[in-house]
């Protein structure tokens, strides 16, 4: 049998000498005499199309229920059970894909790439929560989003994050959103999917980096309410903007009444309760007005500076693009700056394509990233300017209120309110009569 050990090296030698091409039938298939027939290659079918309609219907039903419990019934328990259901269905059963947050990327790519075929589920998951937010506030976050759900359920000992830190960290969501949209628009990567911290729990498998990220976030999430939602989630950028104009919203006390006891402020783990302005607050002083004018004048400057700073992101960001990476590698190899080939450059060279068009398209992509960097920077500058202006406008509030854009409609604050407890007692005694 040692002969075999000798034949194979010879074969290897032959093969490398003759440079056999792919798919050459070196050994013609035999004519069988025993009546053997070729088996077929098995082709198990993918999950049926109809299932994505089921997902959309479940999403719609869950959003309706969330609105019903959180806004109409004012029932935290209902929201809680819905959270568990959503975690099981959208999380563990659907394995966290597709989700509203990731769908931002599909929609963006569809806007920029005319050849991309957009899945219907992605459209529905992107739009439905936004529509509901316009009417009922962020009920999607309350009990439908599986990422929110997993964090909500581990929150056992909430602590308050200082407001300034909360505000500062909140800026991260805009950076993440901007970067994700940029990468999706360029067709380079779907970073929201790649760094989805909880998807590895839903699938019970995943890369070590993402699992570590998820475990860290869940541990932090035991003490700080929903860290991903508050400081990372790119979709929250849209939800906050839409929530600001919602028709109905969570009111802590029944009908928005308030005795100013401030118990709801402690009940909300998400820093979403705003204090009433003191009765004896002075009218907007000259200083405040001056500050407002100053910020408004400064806004274009802030935007410009941020845009300029953003343009520097082009070099690192363009590395996310496959073509750019490949072109740089090929250039380095050609220049003799690196030794040997990597799989990607080897397969590019084997394909016999000339390098010039590759360099050209890489150059074009890098250029687009410079533009993208300017736009990304300008967007962040715009957000900063808007926040500055917003905070310098004095608003009068007569009660403790759930902030329209920050409130996740979870319903935790209801029962902290003495007026609400009274209402519930009355309801209960009424039902005994």
């Amino acid at each position, binding site marked *: 049998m040692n002969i075999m*050990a000798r034949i194979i090296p010879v074969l290897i030698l032959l093969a490398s000498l003759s440079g056999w091409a792919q798919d050459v039938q070196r050994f013609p298939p035999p004519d069988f005499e025993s009546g053997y027939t070729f088996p077929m290659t098995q082709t198990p079918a993918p999950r049926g199309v109809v299932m994505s309609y089921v997902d959309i219907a479940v999403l719609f039903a869950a959003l309706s229920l969330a609105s019903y419990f959180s806004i109409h019934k004012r029932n935290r328990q209902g929201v809680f059970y819905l959270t568990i259901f959503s975690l099981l269905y959208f999380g563990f059963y659907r394995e966290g894909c597709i989700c509203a947050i990731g769908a931002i990327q599909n929609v963006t790519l569809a806007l920029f790439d005319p050849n991309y075929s957009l899945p219907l589920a992605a459209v529905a998951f992107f739009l439905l929560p936004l529509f509901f937010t316009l009417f009922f506030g962020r009920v999607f976050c309350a009990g439908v989003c599986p990422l929110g759900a997993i964090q909500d359920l581990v929150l056992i000992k909430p602590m308050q994050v200082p407001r300034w830190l909360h505000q500062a960290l909140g800026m991260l969501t805009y950076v993440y959103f901007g970067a994700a949209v940029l990468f999706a628009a360029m067709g380079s990567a779907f970073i929201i999917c790649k760094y989805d911290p909880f998807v590895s729990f839903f699938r019970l498998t995943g890369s070590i980096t993402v699992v570590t990220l998820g475990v860290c976030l869940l541990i932090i999430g035991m003490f700080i309410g929903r860290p991903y939602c508050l400081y990372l989630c790119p979709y929250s950028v849209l939800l906050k903007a839409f929530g600001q104009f919602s028709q109905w919203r969570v009111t802590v006390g029944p009908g928005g009444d308030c005795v100013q006891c401030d118990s709801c402020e402690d009940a909300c783990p998400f820093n979403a309760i705003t204090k009433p302005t003191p009765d004896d607050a002075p009218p907007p002083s000259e200083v405040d007005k001056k500050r407002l004018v100053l910020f408004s004048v400064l806004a274009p400057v802030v935007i410009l500076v941020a845009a300029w700073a953003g343009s520097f992101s082009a070099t690192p960001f363009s590395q996310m693009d496959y073509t750019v990476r490949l072109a740089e590698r090929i250039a380095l190899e050609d220049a003799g700056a690196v030794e040997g080939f990597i799989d990607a450059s080897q397969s590019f060279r084997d394909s016999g394509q000339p390098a010039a068009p590759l360099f050209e398209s890489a150059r074009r992509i890098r250029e687009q990233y410079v533009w993208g960097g300017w736009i990304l920077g300008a967007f962040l500058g715009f957000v900063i300017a808007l926040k500055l202006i917003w905070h310098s406008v004095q608003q009068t509030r007569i009660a403790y209120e759930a902030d329209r854009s920050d409130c996740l409609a979870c319903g935790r604050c209801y029962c902290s309110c003495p007026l609400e407890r009274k209402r519930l007692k009355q309801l209960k005694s009424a039902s005994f009569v």
Partner: protein
Amino acid sequence: MDKPKKETKITRRSVLRDGVRSFFVLSMGGASGYLVSRVQAEDYVWQIDPHKCISCGNCASHCVLEESASKCVQSYPMCGYCKLCTGFFNAAPSALDTGAENQLCPTGAIIRTFVEDPYFDYTIDESLCIGCAKCVKWCEAFGNASLYLQVRHDRCLNCNECSIALACPADAFVRVPKSKPYRLKIENKPE
């Protein structure tokens, strides 16, 4: 107090809010119309173009599933049914038998069955295959390239973005219509 009531006070702020909301609703309507028009009748799934795959081995390690959804398949009409299958045996087999030490496949996923002298049939046991592409590489180098990788749709989650596609150095992952979810080297004949 059961019903959510609309904020009753009419202030400058509430008028502004109503206005902006109506604007949002309208523009969202427009956006939905456009986006739905961009949806194609068919959904797409991930698949490997076997003619681009360079058997790099990333399929085994980069799938989001512990056990990759990409697995080896056999194109029977292309196979030479060789007694000395270079996809089955490693480079220095001590004997042409199914001894584990002679096999190339790290998990023993290829089943070798005698058909008639001197031919053998090679079938993949998918429950064992990890998609490492070792057999694919050697079958392509010295045999008929009848072994190749395909994404198996009974396993694949059809991730929004396939993480093997990101790691594939040959750009071999493509999106194919759901109704024709495989890129077979030889199409199955209709029964």
